[in-house]
């Protein structure tokens, strides 16, 4: 499971192994201040990162960022 959260502290404290740091609480995988194309690119970057973590070995709660 890849777990996307705007506040990684919460899933990490609950012991979730693969945590992806989303953009913000009211728009986890987006940013309404961006033009549509750039927002779509941001969402894709976060989603791609989340999917990529599924192929990675982790041994403990680990936070991944899109950068």
């Amino acid at each position, binding site marked *: *499971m*890849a*777990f*996307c*959260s*705007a*506040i990684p*502290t*919460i*899933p990490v*404290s*609950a*012991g*979730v*192994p*693969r945590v992806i740091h*989303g953009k*913000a*609480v*009211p*728009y*986890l*995988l*987006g940013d*309404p201040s961006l033009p549509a194309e750039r927002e*779509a690119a941001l*969402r*894709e970057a*976060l*989603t*791609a990162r*989340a*999917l990529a973590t*599924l*192929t*990675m*070995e*982790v*041994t*403990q709660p680990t936070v991944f960022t899109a950068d």
Partner: protein
Amino acid sequence: MGSVRVAHYLNQFFGGVGGEEKADALPEVRTGPVGPGQLLQQLLGADATIVGTVVCGDNRMAERPAETLPVVLGLLRDLGPDLVVAGPAFNAGRYGLACAAVCAAARRALDIPAVTAMFPENPGREAVDRSVLVAVAGPTAATMKADLERLAGLALKILRQQPLGPADVDGYLPTGRRVNEFADRTGAERMVEMLLKRLRGEPYVSELVVPRFDRIPPAPPVPDLGRTTLGLVTTSGVVRAGNPEGIESWRATKWARYPLAGVEALSPEAFTCVHGGYDNRYIRANPHRAVPLDVLRRYLREGRIGRLHEVLYTTVGNVMPVERARRLGREVAQELRDANVQAVLFTAT
């Protein structure tokens, strides 16, 4: 003891700034007590004076702690307090984390005692520094008065440097500190008595608290996403338009399953968001901001994902008791297992 100076920390809601639409509010300081601080001041009496209140938006603190916490700390320092009080945060996760961070920072940077209050299941509990005392609070503000009485009682004990009683007597979350005391019977006698009570189904109180940490063994990595069946689960509160299943906007009791076959995108006409814990207008305008089906559809076409389990599992993860979250999680996990789903993309908030 002369009247000592207390600084109070509140989020934007209890500070009277506004609801989720103001959750980005910058830290600001008010003179004297605000909101719950009014009653807290009455309970503290003449011995302690709330000289000022620092108010900050929950999202501001949760999303930008590195830049926000120092500002909050500066405002607190300017109040010249002898004690920092934060909350009560009840079972509000972001608020609890903020109270924990503010208290820990006050302890470290200002070298003064700090006390907060929260529901025992608040995620902020895990973030609380051991040097910070946490009064037990109810899950919601319905118990505000009793919670503030407990908080004020602890604050006064700290200020008067009186010894604390046991956690369950004085109403704070156990700190792990052990104090020796004499018992009138040996451990063997007490143990047998406890065993007999247990066998008779009578209530008993263990002398040893066994910590209950979830150990979640990480799933092994999937070898190839192009051959993997992916499941999609969310606690963001995205539901079908009209919320026909009636999923509650907080303390949700159920989850829903929506077939995704033939659904190319989550349009704002067909889907909405009922999460009551954040300003959900941006998700309602574009549900992909919480559930990235648009990206996943493209990846499926491009072969970057083998297959999508064509169901969206959804609920609202707002002030949900941990035990209920476990139950709902088990139910959804069983469905995923039955459908031979090999990996899951989970979007929270």
